[in-house]
């Protein structure tokens, strides 16, 4: 969109927009260094204390919540990734009846508001007399992650040249061998991306967890509960640490991919 105001309008806007997006993150990060007591609202002074002593006895609750979130995320990710990958392969490669219904059933969890998902599962557990625990949380998280895994892996499977697997069969590979040595290695990047996405969704989930967790606290739930009283700076520390970790991984992946492509282009 060329506006005669100059070609700088769009880049400047974009820069400002991106800065705007970063504001709360920077705020959270800064306040992780706040020498706060119970509530982390007013700035009292700079300290590295919170970073160095994240998990003390007094702050056990935060760390426990964080630990719970990690465990739940890991388990739910494994289940969702396995189930979702299987579905994705079936959808792209095979003919079967009720394809429309399958697509719809996979799409709906992504379109349903979290309140409805959470309330529904909670009502179900209630009706069955199942007490809420880590297990119910994991079951819930697996459920809404499957669809996202399917979308991600499906894209990867679609871009896989079927001739490669045919070559594998032509070159004396039994079906198992073709899957292990040709199909799976080529799908792996997509599966990893799906697993990462699934973990991120599970880790950050609050609403569904809130309905289905009973007394178990996850990291987001802890934040919600303590929002009224005051969130300790340790929560900021953990959140910032997670943020930096995730950012480093993603940026490294992008940079190395760009470097590799540049190297290949030069070679040819």
């Amino acid at each position, binding site marked *: 969109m060329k506006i005669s105001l100059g070609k700088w309008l769009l880049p400047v806007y974009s820069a400002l927009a991106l800065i705007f997006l970063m504001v709360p993150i920077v705020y959270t990060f800064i306040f992780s260094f706040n020498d706060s007591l119970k509530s982390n609202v007013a700035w009292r002074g700079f300290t590295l204390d919170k970073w160095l002593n994240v998990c003390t006895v007094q702050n056990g609750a935060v760390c426990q919540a964080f630990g719970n979130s990690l465990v739940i995320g890991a388990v739910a990710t494994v289940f969702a990734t396995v189930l979702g990958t299987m579905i994705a392969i079936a959808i792209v490669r095979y003919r079967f009846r009720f394809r429309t219904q399958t697509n719809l059933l996979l799409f709906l969890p992504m379109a349903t508001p979290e309140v409805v998902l959470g309330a529904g599962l909670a009502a179900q557990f209630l009706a069955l007399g199942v007490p809420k625990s880590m297990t119910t949380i994991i079951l819930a998280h697996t459920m809404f992650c499957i669809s996202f895994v399917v979308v991600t892996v499906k894209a990867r499977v679609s871009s896989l040249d079927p001739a*490669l697997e045919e*070559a594998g069969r*032509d*070159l*004396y590979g039994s079906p198992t061998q073709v899957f292990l040595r040709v199909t799976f290695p080529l799908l792996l990047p997509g599966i990893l991306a799906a697993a990462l996405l699934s973990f991120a969704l599970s880790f950050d989930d609050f609403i569904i967890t809130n309905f289905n967790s009973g007394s178990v606290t996850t990291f987001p739930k802890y934040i919600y509960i303590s929002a009224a009283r005051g969130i300790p700076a340790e929560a900021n520390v953990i959140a910032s640490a997670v943020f930096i970790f995730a950012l480093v991984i993603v940026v490294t992946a992008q940079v190395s991919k760009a470097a590799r492509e540049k190297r290949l282009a030069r070679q*040819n």
Partner: protein
Amino acid sequence: MAIGTFAESGADLELVGIQKRFPGFTAIENLDLTIPAGSFFALLGPSGCGKTTTLRLVAGLEDPTTGRILIGGQDVTSQKPYQRPVNTVFQSYALFPHMTVLENVAFGLRRRKIGDPVAKAHEALRLVELDHLASRRPIQLSGGQQQRVALARALVNRPALLLLDEPLGALDLKLRRQMQLELKTIQEEVGLTFLHVTHDQEEAMTMADTVAVMNKGQIEQMGPPQQLYELPKTAFVANFLGQSNLFTGSVVGNTSTSIAVDIAGTRMVVPTSRAHRHAGEITIGVRPEKLSLHTEAPPVDSGRNLLGPGRVVDVSFSGVSTQYLVDVPGCGTIVVFAQNMAFGPVAHEGAEVWVSWNIDHGFGLDDDPADAPRFEADTDTQSIAAHRRDALLTELEEV
């Protein structure tokens, strides 16, 4: 043929009564084919004729609806691809992107648990002169190099039968010519049976010992390239391999050696040995390069057929030769290829010319003319434009 050992030489391939139906259409109607061991066989045809399907049936990547496939006398119809002594060079090469070139070539050997796969893989790469790139990834290679790796990957397994699915399609002209010669040399050296599928008739004729022309799921004609070209059996073959001038008429005379046909008033003669049908309505033809163009009425020669006078409608220069379109009343438009022995065309547009050819160069088709079109309708834009121009000029002249 045990999979654990290498084939000593190529094996026969036999397809018996093959039919392949897909939901919605039939790819192969009724195919019977025998390919002798050690030969270079080309399956030639336009897109959708069923040649790639045939290849995939032999490889085991598809199952025939009915029929049997025998390799070296053994029925392999029910065998899976990894059980057959057959390897394929795919059109897209299908090199595994996540493995090195060496690993790609060694893949089949490892699956069959052949001893010392690495050494054998290097040997195969040396055969295609790419051993120095053994540790590269496929994506780092050029198209021609990838093609050669695909070939090495298939050859290293010493299959009884090697299938090539239009492997040279993605290469530029010069590289393609080079690879055609290389493939032929390798085949003769190693002595394997090659089945090459292509739509490029020049490629088929250059490389193959035997060519089969396929159309709509059936083989129209099979034989040595030269025989197919000089003695086509059907109008499809006559027009798919090179170009032909075809004429339809009724037989008006028979001698022991030749048949006379009446084409719109002109009498044309065709040797009996070169005609499939000897009575009734038949279609005869002659190749454009066998025709001579005359600017004056030539003397009558009993050994030559003569058409004319006609008018040159179009002259098209293409380096080695010039193509003339000559309109002869009652016979349609005739295509003449003349080698450019001197500079400049023999006749210009609008000139009055005669066309003649040696009787022995004509051929008679096996088609029933009632099925085949009477005159080959020339629908390429060039001749349509030429005719139109001619019509306009005539119109203007009449005003």
